[in-house]
């Protein structure tokens, strides 16, 4: 799947040299070096995955270990996929997913475009902008609930200061309408720098000579932007979108700290719903089937992601 020129150079120890090398053969060393990692991943990822798939066909409940385990066939899957509550959860996830991606791409690309002009202090501002995405989402999310407090919260104060609303009744995370936007705002604050960095790499990969040629042809700046900048940066943008998509599809820590899924179920994203089923209601069989549907979706998206990754690598 990965074919960079580097791979091809690296792969082949020249045949005559390989025969002269002392000690273990390359093949043995390759095995010794790779095996521990693969073994650990098999133990911690693949074995549990197979276990999950097996459990997904049963009615097992962890908190009732003595109950007999029945195989229920596809009934768990049937229940999940016909349940309108799960469907609503998916729609809440979709709202979160779409708006965070739209906002992050717009702001992130704009910032990257500006940063690409190489003004003074460029590096310093980039580092400052990047801070939020390196921090612990749970800890930061928890603190954002403070910023979102009615009256005493800084965010609410600033908003009511400019809109002239009543500071004591204006609440972001307590409001059914606004809660789903509250999580979008924090995620955008946190992850816009991620999109920005990737877009910046995309913009920097465009050689100046192309713009110079376009300038000679008297193409307007506007035209250059749409015919050169956007198409050339597109693979990078795809990469950023796919990665943010996967990450936010499984979003848990930030949102669970911010709203805990409420008010009502308005911000109950898929992972939060799954956590309730698995670790609060202890419906292990059912939640295993739920987990498998998420696995398959993420695995599918991940394959597209790797394809996009290789496209960028070729550049």
């Amino acid at each position, binding site marked *: 799947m990965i074919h960079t020129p580097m791979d091809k150079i690296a792969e082949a120890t020249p045949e005559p040299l390989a025969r002269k090398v002392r000690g273990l053969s390359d093949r043995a060393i390759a095995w010794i070096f790779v095996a521990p990692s693969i073994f650990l991943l098999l133990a911690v990822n693949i074995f549990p995955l197979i276990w999950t798939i097996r459990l997904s066909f049963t009615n097992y409940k962890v908190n009732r270990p003595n109950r007999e385990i029945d195989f229920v066939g596809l009934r768990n899957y049937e229940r999940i996929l016909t349940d309108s509550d799960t469907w609503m959860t998916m729609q809440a996830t979709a709202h979160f997913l779409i708006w965070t991606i739209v906002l992050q791409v717009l702001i992130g690309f704009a910032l990257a475009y500006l940063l690409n002009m190489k003004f003074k202090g460029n590096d310093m501002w980039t580092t400052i902008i990047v801070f939020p995405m390196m921090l612990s989402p749970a800890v930061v999310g928890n603190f954002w609930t403070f910023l979102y407090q009615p009256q005493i919260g*800084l965010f609410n104060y600033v908003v009511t200061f400019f809109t002239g609303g009543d500071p004591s009744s204006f609440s972001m995370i307590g409001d059914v309408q606004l809660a789903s936007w509250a999580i979008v705002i924090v995620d955008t604050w946190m992850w816009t720098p991620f999109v920005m960095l990737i877009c910046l790499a995309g913009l920097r990969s465009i050689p100046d000579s192309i713009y110079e040629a376009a300038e000679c042809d008297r193409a307007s700046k506007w035209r250059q932007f749409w015919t050169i900048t956007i198409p050339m940066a597109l693979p990078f943008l795809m990469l950023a979108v796919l990665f943010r998509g996967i990450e936010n599809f499984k979003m848990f820590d930030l949102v669970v700290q911010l709203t805990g899924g409420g008010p009502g179920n308005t911000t109950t994203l898929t992972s939060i719903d799954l956590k309730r089923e698995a670790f609060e209601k202890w419906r292990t069989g059912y939640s295993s089937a739920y987990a498998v549907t998420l696995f398959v979706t993420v695995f599918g998206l991940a394959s597209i992601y790797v394809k996009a990754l290789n496209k960028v690598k070729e550049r």
Partner: protein
Amino acid sequence: MSFSVTEPSVATKWFAGTAVMLYAIITILPLMWIIATGFKSPADSIAYPPKVVFEPTLEGYVNLFTQRTRLNQDDLDALPPPETWYDEMVREQGQVITGRSRYGERFMNSVIIGFGSTFLCMVLGTAAAYAFSRFRVPLKDDLLFFILSTRMMPPIAVAIPIFLMFRQLGLNDTHLGMILLYTAVNLSLSVWLLKGFIDEIPVEYEEAALIDGYTRFQAFYKVVLPQAATGIASTAIFCLIFAWNEYAFAVLLTSGTAQTAPPFIPTIIGVGGKDWPAVAAGATIFLVPVMVFTILLRKHLLRGITFGAVRK
């Protein structure tokens, strides 16, 4: 300065610089607010309108590390005079210290699990990355994809069987269990990143060493490892930051002995009502090291977040 048609004008640059600066200031504001709140008194922290200028105090930090109980004035007066400055500070709030809080423990757990898993991850990851970079490994591409896909999986979904498995093995709520788990999750990042770094080291160096009579293994640790030192260091920091920040597994699989700081900090409450300065103090101590690491890492950030795909 050479003239170029693609170079933006001074005015454009000035505009760009100002716009970026404004965004940077707005984006850093919540972080500054965390740090500032840590030095406020509880009353100042919930003042309306929010206080920008305040008298700094260490109350938040004292409250973070202690457990206290409220006493009425008569009982307070009956006590012997306070021995230390923090004793005195707590007394002024009408409380007495009853013991140490668990923050220190939780923080140490974060350190142990973070460094333990990073170390293990680097040992396994460097070896695997070297093999993937230099040898013909059967099914190489599939293995690399498989390794990457393990990281993409939703943690909550993975946690269900891990929880069952750890329970069987007695690894629930142990340092070892968390170290193994974080190592497995970080392995994808370290293998992919390090493969990129090792790919960049010319093969000729090792071939020369091999001709000089080194074994493959000697060539690996005497020639390749020193060359890859920067790459290994930055990969290690990435792994450390991830393990440091991780919340989902930690909150589901640990409760008492091995709980790390991220699930603990949100549970900090004061005596009567949420003690925001203490929460902010805990967050500050926890977040500032990561900010320092971010500054150190800034040249390699892009590589880290794209699994080594984008190099510049």
